[in-house]
């Protein structure tokens, strides 16, 4: 059982790294360039669908197809955000934007893999340290957590006594 636990703890960073790498493209959408590229592609797709529906509606005069075309046009309007509008107005090329976005996505895949590895390592170390009891003969400060606020000074009776003696010595 103990061996199984050790193997699980050792595998944890690798598993977390793999999960991180898988989550990379999704997390990459927080990047403005990737988000803009997605919006541009979505707009293009909506425009194609809208054009197709309009053409179909022109050929066939049925009200059902006309309604469908209206829906498509509305979807196209929704897809056109301020960012996409600003991009269309700018001199930047579509391929240039998509290339940059794909590059950032690749970086994210690596980055989230490393993030997963980091989180997995920390988790593994923390899990492993639960069973490790350090030898302490007195009450001791855990310096990783101590923010040096000084609250414990005045609560320690030995310290109060010491400070009293120090104060008396200073007055003499």
């Amino acid at each position: 059982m103990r061996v199984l636990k050790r193997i699980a703890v050792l595998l944890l960073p690798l598993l977390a790294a793999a999960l991180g790498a898988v989550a990379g493209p999704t997390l990459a959408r927080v990047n403005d360039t990737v988000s803009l590229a997605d919006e541009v592609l979505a707009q293009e797709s909506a425009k194609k669908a809208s054009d197709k529906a309009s053409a179909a509606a022109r050929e066939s005069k049925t009200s059902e197809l006309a309604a469908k075309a209206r829906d498509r046009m509305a979807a196209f309007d929704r897809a056109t955000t301020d960012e996409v509008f600003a991009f269309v107005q700018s001199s930047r090329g579509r391929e240039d934007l998509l290339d940059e976005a794909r590059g950032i996505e690749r970086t994210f895949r690596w980055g989230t893999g490393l993030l997963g590895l980091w989180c997995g390592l920390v988790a593994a170390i923390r899990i492993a340290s639960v069973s490790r009891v350090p030898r302490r003969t007195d009450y001791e400060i855990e310096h990783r957590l101590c923010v040096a606020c000084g609250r414990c000074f005045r609560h320690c009776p030995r310290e109060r006594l010491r400070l009293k003696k120090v104060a008396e010595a200073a007055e003499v």
Partner: protein
Amino acid sequence: MTRRVRATVVLAGSLAAMLGVAQSAWAAPLRSPGGSLIWSDTLHVILLAVALAVAAYLAIWRRSRRGLVWLSIASLGYFGFYLGGCVCPVGSIQNVAAGLADPTYTVPITVVLVFALPLVAALLFGRVFCSSVCPLGAIQDLVLLRPVHLPLWLEYALGFVPYVYLGLAVLLAATGSGFIVCRMDPFVGFFRLDGSPQMLITGGALLAVSMIIGRPYCRFLCPYGVLLGMCSRVARWRVRITPDECIRCRLCEKACPFEAIRPPTVEEGGGP
């Protein structure tokens, strides 16, 4: 004049001098061609270094809780409300990460110093930056009224969050996707007396929690605390409960609202 009164006078004088110098620098700043405030940035770094030195003196050699509280108030006033909580070492992690990942991203030397000084101080003296220099820690510490001790398992589980937050902040900064630590800063809205309702509500809620749980942001969120904690493990001079012999009264453990005091694991005779 007793030592206590003398210490109070010295601290009040330091505070007044700090604010006076800051005020004069603000009133007549030297400007770089780009328009940035050279003087105030340099002054900010100098005052940070001075505050760290004073905090180390008060925590380790003077062992004065009162002195640390006064320094917290001064730091909250200057680094928090006066400077608006920016640039702070917590957020500077992202500038450094962005600078390392992108050669075209320039990190000003003052930001590098703001990032490095508390870490150097932690390597020498432990987390003295957290004690009374960080405005985020100070604002939480000053409202702590009736500390409640959290169960150890919960403390341990929540203590994992800052590591994830640090990793995420570095990743997003390094990929140019934004500075999440600054965007999610809960207290900057108070410091600038401005902010979105969402920011103010989050900050207010965290402050309300801080009244019963010691420094929740520092313990369960702060990414810079992870780095400071790592550095403080090897610190040369560190805070001690008492320089005298421990009598195992357990009062210090009860007094610590941050669960940072651990009980003995062996009996007094040396056996387990």
